[in-house]
């Protein structure tokens, strides 16, 4: 499974690194025994507000896309970044279409486990749109701010 990571605004294919993954349930059940876990897997029906306390100590949070149509993890990622201040890696796992990656990046994802598409194509898709109308978890300035910043029309 190729892994793509975001550095700045570009993708870099990365070798699979050894993670010690733990599911939320296992982590909650036997926290002591899982002390050396580095990645927490959160299913997409979990209210991340209830996980806020668990985040510290994990380098990676893995969020799930059971099918590409199931978009709950977009909201989970934004909450993790914007409300709970998680600064580690947020990784997307599951059924991911290359045309979705840009939106995932905007919601705070920065690593992707991709099944089919090649890295170059996904990278190109990241550049599909030059602007965004709305603020999100990335730091793209929304169009309205660019409008305010542009020099007054002559």
């Amino acid at each position, binding site marked *: 499974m190729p892994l793509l990571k975001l550095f700045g605004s570009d993708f870099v294919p990365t070798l699979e690194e050894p993670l010690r993954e733990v599911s939320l349930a296992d982590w909650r059940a036997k926290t002591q025994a899982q002390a050396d876990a580095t990645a927490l897997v959160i299913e997409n029906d979990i209210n991340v507000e209830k996980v806020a306390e668990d985040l510290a100590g994990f380098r990676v949070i893995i969020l799930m896309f059971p099918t590409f*149509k199931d978009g709950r993890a977009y909201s989970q990622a934004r909450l993790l970044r914007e409300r709970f201040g998680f600064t580690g890696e947020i990784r997307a796992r599951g059924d991911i279409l290359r045309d979705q990656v840009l939106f995932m990046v905007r919601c705070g994802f920065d690593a992707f486990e991709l099944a089919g598409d090649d890295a170059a194509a996904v990278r190109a898709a990241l550049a599909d749109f030059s602007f965004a109308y709305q603020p999100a978890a990335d730091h793209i300035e929304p169009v309205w701010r660019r409008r305010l910043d542009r020099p007054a029309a002559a």
Partner: protein
Amino acid sequence: MYRYDEFDATLVGERVSQFRGQVERRLSGALSEDQFKPLRLMNGLYLQLHAYMLRVAVPYGTLSSRQMHKLAHIARKYDKGYGHFTTRQNIQYNWPALVDVPDILDDLAEVEMHAIQTSGNCIRNVTSDQYAGAGADEVEDPRIWCEVIRQWSTFHPEFTYLPRKFKIAVTASQNDRAAIRLHDIGLRIHKTDAGEVGFEVIVGGGLGRTPYIGHTIREFLPKKHLLSYLEAVLRVYNLEGRRDNLYKARIKILVNAGGAQKFTDMVEAEWAAIRKSEIDLPAEEVERIRAYFAPPDFEVLPAESAALEQKRKGDTAFARWLRVNTVAHKSPGYAIANISLKPVGGIPGDISDVQMEAVADLAAHYSQDEIRATHEQNLVLPHVRKDDLYAVWQALAAQGLATPNIRLVSDIIACPGLDYCALANTRSIPIAQRISERFADLEQQEDIGELKIKISGCINACGHHHVGHIGILGVDKKGEEFYQITLGGSGAEDASLGEIVGRGLSSGDAVGAVEKLVDYYRENRQDNERFIDTYRRLGADPFKEALYAAA
């Protein structure tokens, strides 16, 4: 009207390029139909019974002449010479070839139009009151806020894979011409006693197989908070809406499962956490958008036009059209002219390329370059000088566009049904055609008064049958087409859901049934009661009896 700046134009252009690439991947076989489907659905491209269908967004129903000319051009060049206006103010083309679709989208982009988010489980084209900016009864032009929502919802990264589609409608009048109580979110701009203007927020309305009237979750939302509040509603829905069952995935199910209060509490809690963020537009940007909707330079005119009065007296056909199809304008000496797309025996909402060109020319000459589409599948010239109404009427009549039947029994909403739609049980269009033929007599129609007939070819309710004064629903019984009648629905400010009355009828009997119901109403109405008023006063039983007794 709103005009794109470099940002809007770039984004729409980039979307066309992106889709062109996706179509190429499909045509070369790099994408399977399964993989292509979600991508084409994000661009308004459906696969119907016989061909692809392209749904083009008409944001909040407003079109310029130039845009209408382009729609005509597309109908001629890429389709069979016609288009179909839908119940969501959009236009659909029924016969485009896949390979042409990127070129169609390029043509649309030239006139600042697109098919973005007209399908798929995302925030759809925002709809509004077709009289916005013209109606005598509005608080302010709701399209300012529609455009604010259009921009915010376009390519929203978090809300593009919702549990189900999401429809928002905005109005600024007591008279609801946008069916706001039947939308996922309905917004009503109103003024408090203290003179402050804001939104009533209504959530969880919808049709389909489980219809609901929306709940007001906030009586008053200050305008400046609109986007953060919408974002809170959408986030709660994205996280909590059901995804295990397609038929239970709309927000109406979530709202009603736990009760409106619980839903409201969740939204308010989410909103409390985000309302101070940068989601809401700064006042400067709202003003920038507002400036595009500044009223056109209306001439200072006397309230009444002598020329018009003279024609009215001399020409009874014109006088009838004036009575039925024109509406009060907010500026003295002007009127709003409705264009019926429901000629006797015609297909509701269909319009030919030649008719589109004619409407575009009329708008350019007589209506400040503006045209509106209505959710009842008609068009509107919003700003016509009363002095010009006669000329406008003559030009419309020459094109078969002057049927004086707005709100009357033959102004029928009908979904495409089995003539086009892969999900249909029955045909809808022929029933509409036969009803309008049965009631062709204009004098009789006017005597019957306001009567809204709405026809759907299956329980998905695209034809709004639940909110028809008389609703007709196509059902399939062992391979035979049947029609179920519902009575007492309304999609307006007095929103209500129709009740099913008795067993299904054959297509022949369905038309006769409407006639029996109308006869019963005419015999029993009091004063100026509309059909729906008489029904509400007397209840379902006598109408049922009238329908089935003699049969």
